[in-house]
């Protein structure tokens, strides 16, 4: 009898430890304003989502299923997102329609392997795998409140942009939007020096009531996965695309003498600009 009891308790403890070992997951919703050309938070606005557990995180934005908008979003690039008494002749010269696709721009982070996998749409089939890049964060003592969380400020220069992030140690997980990981707390707000990129916190749920799957990078139907590229390969490819486009416009200029070919700039097209 004693032995049975012992085994029973042992099983209970075992099951208990199993239950405790069950991974808890969380979802954080962000807003993402992309205005690479104009800055000042004037541009297309998307929803972004970060799902995480203690070992992995998955960040996605510009995904069509996330954007369940009721009216078609014609975002004239020259007025603010909420049109009140906006400018009388708002002119949509750049067509600020949202650019989304089936899978969205994604970043997957694995803490144990300290590796990032990512996918950026519109480049062909660039799926990048890289060791988590070291970002030399400079910690400031400034604080601000986002919701009920007190956040601390950190700044860093990363791949051609100067970022400012607000993270909270009340949520001690090293995750954040896009590739802004590795801080002593969850990053709630992040932006670069001219607000070309702006992420802001909306809400968090942890633990989620219904268990979810932390997805790995999904491949897009039109840009199929072939292999994992390195980051420098991605940069080279981005520069190549710009050159190709420029060359094409030079050819057009030969036929239409009044057409002036211009070369686009990296910082107006991509978030990561340099090494």
């Amino acid at each position, binding site marked *: 009898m004693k032995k049975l009891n012992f085994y029973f308790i042992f099983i209970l403890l075992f099951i208990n430890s199993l239950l405790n070992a069950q991974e808890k997951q969380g979802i954080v919703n962000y807003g993402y304003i992309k205005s690479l050309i104009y800055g000042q938070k*004037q541009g297309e606005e998307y929803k972004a989502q970060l799902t995480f557990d203690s070992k992995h995180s998955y960040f996605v934005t510009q995904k069509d299923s996330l954007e369940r908008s009721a009216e078609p979003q014609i975002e004239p690039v020259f007025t603010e997102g909420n049109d009140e008494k906006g*400018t009388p002749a708002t002119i949509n010269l750049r067509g600020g329609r949202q650019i989304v696709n089936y899978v969205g721009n994604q970043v997957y982070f694995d803490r144990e392997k300290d590796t990032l996998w990512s996918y950026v749409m519109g480049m062909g089939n660039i799926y990048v795998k890289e060791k988590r890049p070291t970002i030399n964060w400079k910690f400031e*003592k400034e604080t601000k409140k986002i919701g009920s969380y007190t956040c601390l400020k950190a700044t860093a220069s990363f791949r051609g942009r100067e970022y400012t992030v607000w993270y909270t140690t009340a949520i001690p997980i090293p995750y954040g939007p896009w590739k802004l990981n590795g801080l002593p707390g969850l990053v709630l707000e992040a932006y670069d020096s001219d607000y070309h990129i702006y992420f802001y*916190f909306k809400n*968090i749920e942890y633990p989620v009531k219904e268990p979810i799957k932390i997805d790995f990078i999904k491949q897009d139907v039109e840009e199929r996965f072939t292999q994992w590229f390195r980051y420098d390969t991605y940069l080279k490819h981005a520069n190549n695309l710009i050159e190709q486009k420029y060359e094409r416009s030079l050819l057009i200029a030969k036929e239409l003498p*009044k057409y002036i070919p211009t070369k686009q700039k990296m910082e107006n097209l991509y978030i990561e600009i340099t090494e």
Partner: protein
Amino acid sequence: MKYFLFFLTTFCFSQQHTITGTITSNNRSIDNASVVVLDDSENMLGYTYSNNLGIYSIPINSKVNEKITISVSSLGYKKKEITIILSDKTLIKQSFELEEKAEVLNEVVLKTDQKIKIDSDTITIKTKYFTNDTEQTVEDVLKRIPGIEIEEDGTIKANGKRIEKLLLEGDDLFDKDYKLLSKNLDGKVLDAVQILKNFEDNPILKQLGDSKSVAVNLKLKKNLLNIWFGNLTLGAGVVSENRWKESLNIGLIRKKIKLLNLADYNNSGIKASSQISKSFPSYDIYRQDRYEKEARSVFYSNSGENTTFSNTQSIFNDAFFNTLAFNTKLKSNFSLRSVSYFALDEQIQNSLSTTAYLVEPSPIFNSEQKNYALQNKKIGSEIELKYSLNTKNYFTANIIFKNNPRRINDNILFNSDFVDVASKNNNYSFYNHLYHTYKIKGNKVLVNYLYFGTDQLSEKNKIVSPYLNEFFNIDSQALIKEKITNTITYNGIKSKLISKYKKIEHVIGAKIESSIEKNNTDFLVNNTQNTEYKNNLHFKQNSISLDNGFKYEFTDDFKLDSQITLDFNAFKSDNFSKLYTLLNSHNGLNYDSKKTGSFNLYHSFNQTLPQTSALINNYQLVSYRSFSKGILNEELPVLNSQSITLSHYYSGSSIRYSTSTSLSYTKSGKINASETTITNNFIFNNTAFVAGGDSYRFNFKLMNFIRKIQMATKLETQQTWVSAPIKVNANDFVDINTLFSTYIVSGTTYLEKPYNFDFTITQNRSYTTYNDSKSSNVVTKANCAVNYKLNETFIMELKSDFYWLDQNYTFLNAELNYTPKKSKFSYRMVLNNLFNENEFKISSLNDYTKTTRSIPLIERYALLTVRYRF
């Protein structure tokens, strides 16, 4: 000695320490727990996360005996902190045992579908998409930016409102004299223009939110920041002589200091002194006020200019000016701004006019041939200091000094005799404003304002007029001298308490002001004093006023605004003293809806005292043939008027148009009217106070961007109907009814093609009914500009102006711009008035006066300018 060195080393150099340990809870190791090490002043020394065995290791650089804090936190566990003092041991072991806790995070700042309400504040517009490369100044560029309108005199409006400030890279340089910047800075330095809504310069008032002001910020091209940049333009007439245009811009824009020097010399008609205004009073019950008083000017000589034609067509002027402005941050919370300028205009304006006064029993006709010369100098300087003592206190001090010497020489052939007028004026103004803004707990702000100033005007007029001399019974070539000295000195202090709550904003303010005004006229006829036309008056006004403003938000869309000001004015003059109570009130309702636009209904009631010129009890000579007098030995009455306005503004975002409509009705109670007696050679005006008339004003504006043809169009009409009492050569006051109508159609294209054009057609009609006689006048003008880009370096612009007046006039101007690639030089050829219109005749109708004027026009010329940009 060696102990001393050892002592030094251990205290002076920081050491590498490694802090390591294990994080556990209930005998289980906790992986991925965050470990953060901070020093005594909360600086980050290092951080990491524990590995899958619960072990962490952090290398830090710190001094021995330094106090550090190690915090460990993990989701599902209570945070633990330990403070230790570092010993000289390089390896420090510190493990933690964590206590479990239930961790649930469900913070919602915004629902997933909501977006943050940011940037109702800033609209950024890249100028290169709207310019056509012919723009010379910042004002030319701003004219093409949607949402920005430039008025005739250069005042900038954004989103329908006059702007508070024109900033350069976020900082203010010229404050109210921003026209010096917009009219002279090279347009090609701009990269983008920002329209800032809810603009508030005062950082404490900014926290109250809800500012109605708008500002425009100019953003320069990035390669011009932090270096000396500018341009030098040299231009001279070719073929025709005596045409000049030289200008210089030098600037340095850095984060901590911004400096601009702008200089210009031209004789193409643009006046230098018209860019600078005399005083800038402003009143905003809910925010800051600014009081600046001017002494009253008396004598005036009509220049004979006409505003129907543009300045470059009809003004003969040599203009020179130089202005230096800078803004620097002496410390992070203390900034200094200063503007200094010197402007000189030398104008010669000849004109011939015939005037018909439509009076009873028979009209009176006059003819006047003028040879008018003006030398106008404006010199001034302004310093502004802004100091943020701490988050609760903010100080601003403004010291302004202006000087305006002016000389006029007018030789007139009036009817059949020559009259000579020489005026020498000087005007000194000195204004001071000191503001202290204090933030009381929460959402209450106290604004204290101390102001004082003085304006001194001296006019010395010498007139040789056979008509006046006949009037005074002296020799027909005798000299009449009139010396006028008017000064006003005032000081005051005003405090207001602004309280802002969720749905209510309330302001209560009190002001104490004292002002002294002196009006002195000396009149010498043939060197003997004539006491009948001499005046020596003193006025003193001591007033206390109380303001109360109340805004209430019924709902997000529906608001009430009620303002009331009570003024107790103890007025003392040589003849009487009286305590006046003046009431001013303004009440309005505003309904804002995204679907139907914004509706405004408001009612105003105003009471003011008349100008002190009403107390001049002897006649004063105010021009070479008019005299003016005030009331005799009476008290000043209170003038009042009421108005009611209904307006609507709508801007559709997806349809890209906006409309603005307004209808207002004004009824005047007592007004300051004139009893005029016109004789063959003179005009006599007596002040009288009578019941005023009423007026209706209707305004409609529609702006639309038609995508198919890429053109921005504007349709505007304004109708003003006025009924006012006048008494001219009659026994009683009679109502004169006038209707002014304006119709404007304009369009500008933004095609992505080498050619673009813009046009404006304006028609002004006026109808007057007076004494059973009706008169009317119609003036129509059309401007059309075509812009053609031959290639990257050559741009041509053809501008034509058509005027349909009594006769028809056509002006044709051409401009050719050559900007070679990769060169710092650019060339411009301006051909003005190709059809060589010499002279124009224009009729204008005003109350009971119909004037026909002939003015010479600037002849045809070709001007070549070279601009060197650095």
